[in-house]
């Protein structure tokens, strides 16, 4: 079943377009990442889905509800982790989760929500005394308070150090394993690649690409890069590999055949291919390519 359905969504702020015709959908149980640079329209899209912003036009449905109406039955089914940490510093961690979980028909026991994000020991700590990373985990616990079928995570690990990020990823993966549908925004490729079943790349308020991480990688025209070193007096290598300072690089479609050609040539010529490396295109390459293309388009406009 489809959890989120967005078609031709438009939104402008005082005449400045932020979202210009975005369409995508999320199936139940899926983890979808909205990926894009700042200003690409990620947060606007998510806030429309969360019911915080009104759209200008387009169709938006979440579990069959129109989020713009802000109905209680809709709110009962979704959990929201906002981009900014929002807490009352005089409440304790446990009180915060309890207070904000009160409106749900079957809230998650506070202890369970805190265990899930690794804050059980801080249950009686005043929120004002938490570290930044702990506050973000509290945000996550609040998002889980109502045991939601769908969780919105707006840049859940921005500003985290690597170990905190790895912990957050484990938590999110745990949620996904429970069957929670997750819509995540991020500008970290690695995060999208690690967590998401599917990625929608946004640039300038439009969908630039969409698909499973692996699918997006393979959609890139030349997807594998082969690099190697050759001694200065060597003859020119095959495949049209070009080099500077003895380091050669060539992009190939079929690495198996390419490597065979290259190594056969080297063996026949009695040469060594030092530091031979085969690199698969990362999602980051795809992303950079797409965002760069969008920038150039902007420049020529």
């Amino acid at each position: 079943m489809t959890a989120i359905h967005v078609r031709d969504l438009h939104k402008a702020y005082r005449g400045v377009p932020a979202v210009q015709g975005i369409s995508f959908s999320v199936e139940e149980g899926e983890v979808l990442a909205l990926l894009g640079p700042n200003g690409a329209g990620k947060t606007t899209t998510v806030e429309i889905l969360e019911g915080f912003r009104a759209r200008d036009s387009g169709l938006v449905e979440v579990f069959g509800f129109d989020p713009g109406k802000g109905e209680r039955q809709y709110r009962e089914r979704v959990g929201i982790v906002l981009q900014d940490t929002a807490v009352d510093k005089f409440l304790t961690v446990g009180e915060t989760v309890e207070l904000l979980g009160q409106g749900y028909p079957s809230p998650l026991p506070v202890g369970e929500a805190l265990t899930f994000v690794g804050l059980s020991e801080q249950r009686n700590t005043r929120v004002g005394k938490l570290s930044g990373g702990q506050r973000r985990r509290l945000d996550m616990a609040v998002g889980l308070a109502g045991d939601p079928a769908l969780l919105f995570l707006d840049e859940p690990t921005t500003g985290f150090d690597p170990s905190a990020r790895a912990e957050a990823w484990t938590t999110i993966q745990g949620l996904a394993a429970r069957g929670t549908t997750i819509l995540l925004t991020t500008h970290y490729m690695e995060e999208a690649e690690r967590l998401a079943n599917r990625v929608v790349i946004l640039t300038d308020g439009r969908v630039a690409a969409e698909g499973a991480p692996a699918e997006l990688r393979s959609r890139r025209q030349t997807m594998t890069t082969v690099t190697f070193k050759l001694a200065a007096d060597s003859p020119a290598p095959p495949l049209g590999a070009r080099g500077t300072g003895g380091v050669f690089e060539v992009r190939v479609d079929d690495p198996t055949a390419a490597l065979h050609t290259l190594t056969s040539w080297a063996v026949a010529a009695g040469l060594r291919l030092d530091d031979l490396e085969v690199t698969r295109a990362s999602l980051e390459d795809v992303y950079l390519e797409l965002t760069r293309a969008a920038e150039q388009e902007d420049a020529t406009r």
Partner: protein
Amino acid sequence: MIAADLRLVMSFAGYANRTFWRNPAAAFFTLFLPVFFLVLFSALFGNEPLTINGNQVSSATFTMVGIITFSVVSACYTNLAISVTTARETGFLKRVRGTPIPRWTFLSGRILQSVLVSLLLVVVCLGFGAVFYHARVPTSTLPALIITLIMGAAAFAALGLAMTALVPNSDAAPAIVNFSIFPFYFVSNVFIPISNPPQWLNVLTHIFPIGPFNEALKTAVVPPLGSTGFNGGDLLVLAVWGIGGALVAFRYFSWEPHP
């Protein structure tokens, strides 16, 4: 459903109460300042006899009524406006809005807590005034006093919520909110008895809500002979302000931080 929502109101009042007492600044200004002023003004103005509504009373009674006004306005207007602005600017209100919690229950809980704090303050002021300064404590006009207090608390809570629409951020909140109210205590015959005010000041103090509230309380505490203690004219002015405040709050109250 209604019962469940009312339980939410009570619960939010409970949480608001916890944060209130844990916030030293709010608790100090709202709770200890009135008692401090009561002691200070009584010391400054002595305990000379004074005539209010044709009754001879000690000037401590005048001070006590003024401090009750101050207490109710501090709890329901000043403290509510500042704490709700802070909750808005930190994004806490937005977060509440993202849950199924009916919005009115959250705000009602906050208002309820403010009203309860102000009632506590009234009891403290009455007790303090009676025990230490022989101030007059009303008995026969108690219904009028309670109705007047509730109307005042409701009107100033509505004005407090309306005020949040004008306050751009939490840093500016204490200054703006206090400045909007503090001068009126001094010019409206609340803290200091003013015997012959200029005409313009007289008009001003009868139009803005502090003066009428204080006058209505004075009538309830020291009623003219044969009166039940209800001051219809001043209560009407207060009600108009309350309704106006509620309308502005309904129209302009924001659940998201101001840009």
